[in-house]
């Protein structure tokens, strides 16, 4: 059903739509990052698309697997026409893309979260600051090169008061998990040994 939205996008924007697919029934269009806001506004205002219901905005870090590194993913649907579409834009380092906060009011917090977790700079966002983490936090934790073991306590640990036992090292944020995509984490297992 939402195939028609993809057709319409292809017809109107032509070259700016880099690729479309419908894996698992989710209709997806990859948009050129420079025309991100323009395409979004078209989808909202065009009578035949009428995608007025904001659903989700996030990003994926493909790190060393793909170039450019980041993919910003937007899910929207139409309240009247009941179709859904996923828009994606690929952006490199340093990640930066137009903000959609003026297109859908809902994008505001989702973009803040995306900035918090991936460090994506949303140009034109009215209030781009951290939302889930605290302002003093260094780095962006959902990037693949952020080590999951790392801890950044807001209040310093007092080792003399806690008296930690040997298996625990300084950084023990997420010491569990046999398998991980987190390559920079040096595959530290629960006992603190590295297997490389």
């Amino acid at each position: 059903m939402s195939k028609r939205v993809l057709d319409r996008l292809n017809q109107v924007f032509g070259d700016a739509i880099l690729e479309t697919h419908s894996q698992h029934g989710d209709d997806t269009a990859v948009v050129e990052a420079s025309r991100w806001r323009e395409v979004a506004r078209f989808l909202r205002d065009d009578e035949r698309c009428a995608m007025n219901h904001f659903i989700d905005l996030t990003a994926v870090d493909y790190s060393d697997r793909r170039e450019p590194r980041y993919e910003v993913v937007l899910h929207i649907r139409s309240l009247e026409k009941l179709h859904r579409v996923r828009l994606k834009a690929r952006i490199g380092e340093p990640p930066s893309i137009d903000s959609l906060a003026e297109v859908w009011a809902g994008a505001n917090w989702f973009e803040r979260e995306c900035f918090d977790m991936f460090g994506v700079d949303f140009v034109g966002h009215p209030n781009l600051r951290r939302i889930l983490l605290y302002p003093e936090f260094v780095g962006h934790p959902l990037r693949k090169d952020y080590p999951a073991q790392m801890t950044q306590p807001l209040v310093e640990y007092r080792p003399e008061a806690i008296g930690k036992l040997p298996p625990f090292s300084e950084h023990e944020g997420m010491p569990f998990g046999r398998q991980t995509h987190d390559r920079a984490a040096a595959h530290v297992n629960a006992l603190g040994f590295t297997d490389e």
Partner: protein
Amino acid sequence: MEPLDIELDEGELELPNDPMQVNMGPAHPAMHGTVRMVVELSGETITKVDVQIGYLHRGFEKMCERGTWTQVFPYVDRLNYASPMLNNVGFALAVEKMLGVTVPERCQHYRVVLGELARICDHLVCSGAMAMELGAFTPFLYFCKARELIWDVFEEETGARVTHSFGRVGGMAKEPTPAFKEMVRNALPAVRALIDDGEKLLLANRIFLDRIENVGVMPKDLAVALGWTGVVLRSTGVPYDVRKVHPYLTYDRYDFDVPVGTRGDNYDRFMCRQEEIRQSTRIIEQALEQMADEGPINIDDPRIVLPPKDEVYSTIEGTIQHFKIVMEGIKVPAGECYSYTEAGNGELGFYMVSDGSGTPYRVRIRPPCFATMQGIEKMIVGGMVPDVVPTFGSVNMIGGECDH
């Protein structure tokens, strides 16, 4: 006559001109301990508010990238901890969508029944807590008692009262117990009676009504643009329910109504929730009717479902199959998918990327109350400080879900 020109500047008592800033939360009883609102006041009217979330952030999405697909289930339990079963079912459906499998019909009905029971719990907690924050403690206890009856069913079925971790990719952890249908059928009338009693205490209470009617109004268009879903959206008059609009499991086979509000105020949200509880009991009755007593619960695919325990201990095939699934995880084909279900607060979505291995490359959860919390600002600015309490109570913000 001498004019009354008292020199105000020289008076000792001066009223401050700056707007007063008040911190509500995170350690405020009405903020559930997880939200902080910095409110700017002019008199007792709120002129500006900064809603700060994140006090319950636990790095959920990062954790999902470490471990197998099945190991995500305990995490999703702790998203919306008022209705963990709905999250379990939602995540199971998302992985099944990627694998391209459908669970047997008996399991679909089973998931519906458990899910709707969880939805009743979720709505009861919200309505009860909202009433309690307004000082009505008795209805809260009535609702808690009703929830207790449902939790007894969960305890019997899953072994746990709150965080069940009962969902599995390709089925459920266990078959329904022989007494399952009877237990649910016995519990429902008692639950309904308790809800009626609790509701009567509230809806005949002028104080309660005065504090929720025409308070925290949200216009329809803005709610849609903000990405609201679920009860909060329906209370503004939009009949969007994932179960009706994009039916999953066997929801297209049941006869139920979607209650909608008209004004989008606290009263509408409260009433929509109460009505949805009644509709859920209707769904449960129909699902129990249609659910077969015999038949498989899990799909028949050795690459996805664990073998029975006695086979693991007695045959080499069973041992290997078990080992492969537990140690390497279920191999989900490479690609991406977005799967969404109607959870307690609205559309709970999972956007997942797989690289073909047994570990998720990225699990994005789309929490319904994250979008809802954005709207709080619009709802409370211009209102009074005491209005924050019922408004915040009626959107059912669950910290675990909102803060990941």
